[in-house]
């Protein structure tokens, strides 16, 4: 066989692979992708299926032939799920705003070379990365601050993520320092420099870190399980656990009374879809930038 050099860096080997080998590789990757995609298709289809179809299929529908949005109408018509969506949106928006503000300020404060005690302060952040506090002491701290059953218990314990501070700090340090120095000479305060010079140059990095946080708040389950007993304050993930994972019956009591109830399975899948959709919406952006963020952290951290 003549050697066809592809010359692309990092490709394992320059000889053309055999046809059989390529077939096997293609097959393996196709299966991997199918294993990820099929459950999504099934979940979405079942959420749109009618009672008849759900019964015929035995519970799970892959391709619905009659599409109905009854399940979505039911969960958005008020009741447990609607409220939980509201809670989750609130936590995600307020939490992300707080996290971004604190993280950007801390990262900027640590980004200036040779500032007062910057090494020690950086150690404080790095050390937090290494040790995760135990379940019991964390619970007691939240309890002693009187935050049990408060929405703040879902925000403040995870508001500052040391890893994100490191990533953002690395980004700030790579900005052209001359710009910052000249603003300083012009007499701008540090807060002004951060707001007017640094942040406008860091929109992409801030967006990535913001999405890191937003996905974290939206998906958070652990804190809600620990700190929220009041069912009226449940975020979406706890509702998912109760009605989808644990299969609790979704009756008219949980939804708006008087409606004809769509099939349980469709309702469950609709709740699942509602919790996935926000992730899917930001995913193209996440995917493009997260990889870069992870690598920055790994290289500089």
């Amino acid at each position, binding site marked *: 066989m003549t050697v066809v050099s592809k010359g692309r860096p990092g490709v394992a080997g320059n000889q053309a692979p055999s046809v059989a080998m390529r077939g096997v590789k293609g097959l393996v990757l196709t299966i991997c992708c199918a294993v990820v995609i099929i*459950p999504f298709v099934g*979940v979405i289809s079942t959420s749109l299926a009618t009672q008849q179809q759900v019964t015929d299929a035995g519970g799970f529908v892959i391709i619905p032939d009659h599409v109905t949005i009854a399940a979505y109408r039911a969960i958005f018509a008020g009741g447990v799920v609607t409220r939980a969506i509201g809670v989750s949106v609130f936590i995600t928006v307020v939490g992300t705003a707080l996290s971004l*503000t604190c993280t950007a300020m801390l990262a900027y404060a640590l980004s200036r070379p040779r500032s007062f005690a910057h090494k020690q302060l950086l150690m404080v952040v790095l050390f937090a990365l290494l040790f995760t*506090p135990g379940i019991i002491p964390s619970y007691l701290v939240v309890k002693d601050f009187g935050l049990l059953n408060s929405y703040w218990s879902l925000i403040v314990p995870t508001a500052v993520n040391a890893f994100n501070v490191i990533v953002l700090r690395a980004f700030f340090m790579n900005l052209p320092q001359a710009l910052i120095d000249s603003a300083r000479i012009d007499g701008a305060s540090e807060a002004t420099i951060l707001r007017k010079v640094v942040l406008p140059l860091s929109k992409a990095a801030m967006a990535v870190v913001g999405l890191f946080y937003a996905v974290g708040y939206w998906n958070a389950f652990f804190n809600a399980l620990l700190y929220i007993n009041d069912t009226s304050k449940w975020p979406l993930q706890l509702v998912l656990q109760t009605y989808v994972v644990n299969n609790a019956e979704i009756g008219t009591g949980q939804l708006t009374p008087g409606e004809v109830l769509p099939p349980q399975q469709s309702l469950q899948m609709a709740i699942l879809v509602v919790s996935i959709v926000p992730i899917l919406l930001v995913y193209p952006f996440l995917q493009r930038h997260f990889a870069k963020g992870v690598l920055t952290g790994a290289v500089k951290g």
Partner: protein
Amino acid sequence: MAVRGEAPADEVRAERSTSRLRRAVAKLRRDRALLLLAIPGLALLLLFQYIPLLGNIIAFENYEPYLGIIHSQWIGLSNFSIIFNGNPEFLDALKNTVIITALQVFFVFPVPIVLALLLNSLVSERLKRLVQSVLYLPHFLSWVVVVAIFQEMFGGSGLLDDWLRAHGHATVNIIGNSGLFKEMIASQVIWKDSGWATILFLAALSQIDAALYEAASVDGASRWRQLWHITLPGLKSIGILLFILQLGSVLSTGFEQIILQQGPVGIASSEVLSTYVYHNGILAGQWGESAAVGLVNGLVGVALVLGANKIAHMFGEQGIYQS
């Protein structure tokens, strides 16, 4: 030291330390505004990362919630006896934790490496990016969603059972089967995170010098030999680093994933140390003992990381930090 030099040396040292102090004060005054910016973030870290670390002190107390940490009775190491006195529930949790950790290390850890090699060998950049988009996605779903999806696949009215019923086969009990619980946990981790975990391996692969492959193929090395002698050595450092980090996290993570699925399979086969701490501490009020278990769990995790890092150093690898 010579007697003659002592007095002046002291003076110089004193002078030096006052000038250092003066410099520090000047620096502090200059950076005041910068430090103010750091305060909210640092305060949150101190309150919710460092204070809980100190809160581990209740592991040495007969903690009573109404007395608080300060006034509860100090009982030394008594709480830790639960670890050594053969409490069967604790031993179950320990055993399950060790087995799940072993599954993670031997079966979950290699998957992203193989996936990265496959992805890396794709010639078409567009195809590669498409496959990556699909495989990264599950990483961003919550554990609740992942567990729900697995139930829809393998549960009683799930896809697999539907298919088996439709084709006249007997259904299989996977979700409620305590014998398969640990394998289930491992496969969920593979499904959720192995795609995402390829990122760092792909980055390492792109760092390998293409000239090495050219030289090897000129010398007549087969693709397999190139894989063995060039590609895998190129992945060694990042592989070891991730392995060490994983050793540290497996003992503590898995909480959300496992607590969601304990119902159908029962506690005996599914309890791990973190869920044990939750059940006995927060739900049953055995604060001191549970904190002791949590503390030892955390310390073992740190010890594993430091130990593995030490071994990596002995083999001339960089590990997670350089000493």
